[in-house]
């Protein structure tokens, strides 16, 4: 293990590895990435794996579109032969009120500014896309055929391998114990394997990013929340897109492998680090899925689990350098959408760390909360 590094990245999920790759690609040497367990063992490996470009703010659409470009050309961009199982069969968003339909209308306009090929759909069109969809009470929806999903573990693995090839040292089963800050500047990181002298730390610790902040003396406005998910046995492909509704509160997709993955946003979930699965989730999920997609009644749930959403006050990412502790960078608070925008976030963090101008004109800093400039993204589960 190096005892001196130019940058120490904390977290071996998709954000940490994509940041490591972006930095190394720009020629930054002596990067160390620290992971407490294994690659993608936190939120990345537990997530629903969707990649959606249908957002309501220009900024989010931009990040998602740019990230999708990377996912679409992943092997070329990373110089890897790992197939991340990208499937672009679209996201079908369902609307249950005029208000929601209006929102989709406005969203599509924003999306079109960025050439995202989304469109509004009627119930009949929605049924053409998913023939067994129950359109009762539905007013219509929005569909973007190039949305989709990829395998988060393979994507993380590919980023890690590419970063390693560019000289990044990745330490698994290594835990950050403390961060040394002197005169509001990062001086080093104490790990379970020893001390690493550095003046730059990247907090990409997902569910545990508040704890990493504490180690640097920072009270970051993020907290973790359990979100549950389940997977069924595989059957032959019958559903192309991710089916999603904000108001009915569900997302459900069939993976290329044939199994269905689904979840919903929990109500009244306490803050914390509990990732145990609950039987109540099965009941609510069964009700939702069987109503919306009736043939799923005969699908067998084989596994349920939970992961942590790292929530921010406006449910939007915080990607910036701390204004209090110099050299403390963060890519946190993704609120459930970290995987799909990780390629762009890696680029932004590399911009910040190398002192380059931001590749895209986005405002994701921590200061936005003090300035009362929270991001109003209407399209979140």
């Amino acid at each position, binding site marked *: 293990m190096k005892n001196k590094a130019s940058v120490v990245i904390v977290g071996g999920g998709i954000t940490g590895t994509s940041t490591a790759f972006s930095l190394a690609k720009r020629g930054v040497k002596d990067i160390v990435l620290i992971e407490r367990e*294994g*690659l*993608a*063992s936190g939120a990345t*490996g537990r997530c629903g794996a969707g990649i959606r470009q249908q957002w309501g703010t220009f900024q989010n659409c931009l990040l998602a579109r740019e990230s999708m470009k990377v996912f679409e050309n992943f092997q070329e961009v990373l110089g890897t032969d790992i197939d991340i199982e990208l499937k672009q069969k679209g996201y079908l968003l369902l609307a249950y009120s005029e208000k929601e339909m209006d929102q989709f209308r406005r969203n599509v306009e924003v999306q079109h500014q960025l050439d995202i090929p989304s469109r509004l759909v009627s119930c009949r069109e929605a049924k053409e896309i998913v023939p067994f969809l129950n359109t009762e009470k539905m007013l219509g929806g929005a569909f973007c055929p190039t949305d989709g999903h990829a395998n988060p*573990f*393979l994507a993380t*693995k590919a980023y890690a391998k590419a970063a390693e090839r560019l000289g990044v040292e990745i330490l698994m089963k290594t835990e950050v114990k403390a961060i040394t800050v002197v005169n509001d500047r990062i001086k080093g990181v104490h790990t379970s394997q020893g001390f690493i002298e550095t003046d730059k730390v990247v907090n990409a610790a997902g569910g545990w990013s508040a704890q990493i902040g504490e180690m640097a003396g920072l009270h970051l406005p993020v907290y973790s929340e359990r979100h549950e998910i389940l*997977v069924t*046995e*595989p059957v032959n492909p019958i559903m192309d897109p991710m089916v999603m509704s904000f108001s009915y509160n569900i997302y459900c997709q069939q993976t290329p*492998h044939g199994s269905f993955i689904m979840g919903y946003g929990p109500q009244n979930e306490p803050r914390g680090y509990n990732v145990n*699965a609950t*039987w109540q989730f*099965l*009941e609510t*999920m*069964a*009700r939702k*899925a*069987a109503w919306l997609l009736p043939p*799923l*009644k*005969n*699908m*067998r*749930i*084989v*596994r*349920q*689990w939970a992961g942590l959403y790292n929530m921010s006050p406006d449910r939007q990412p915080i990607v910036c350098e701390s204004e209090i502790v110099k050299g403390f960078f963060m890519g946190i608070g993704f609120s459930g959408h970290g995987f799909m925008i990780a390629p762009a976030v890696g680029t932004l963090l590399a911009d910040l760390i190398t002192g380059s101008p931001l590749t895209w004109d986005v405002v994701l800093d921590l200061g936005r909360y003090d300035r009362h400039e929270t991001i109003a993204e209407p399209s979140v589960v």
Partner: protein
Amino acid sequence: MNDDKTIVCRCEDIDIETIRKLIDQGVTSLEEIKRITRCGMGPCQGKTCGPVIAREIAMKTGQPMEEILSPRSRPPFGGVLFQEVLEGIDDEE
């Protein structure tokens, strides 16, 4: 039938050569092999393949079995249909 194969995982049709290649590439944890190959994620949830793969890892890397096997089984054990979950709810209302 195809070529002669030694199958490790019946659920996902994974043969031992695939597993051995991964271990040789440095993929030496059960969890990682599971994520890459889907071994252990099928209907049987790793009951047949888990111990076999763990032994392959132990043989190739010298890691003790204790460290390789991590019991991370997840409910519902044996699986349950959505329909069956729903029937259980109705009963109590």
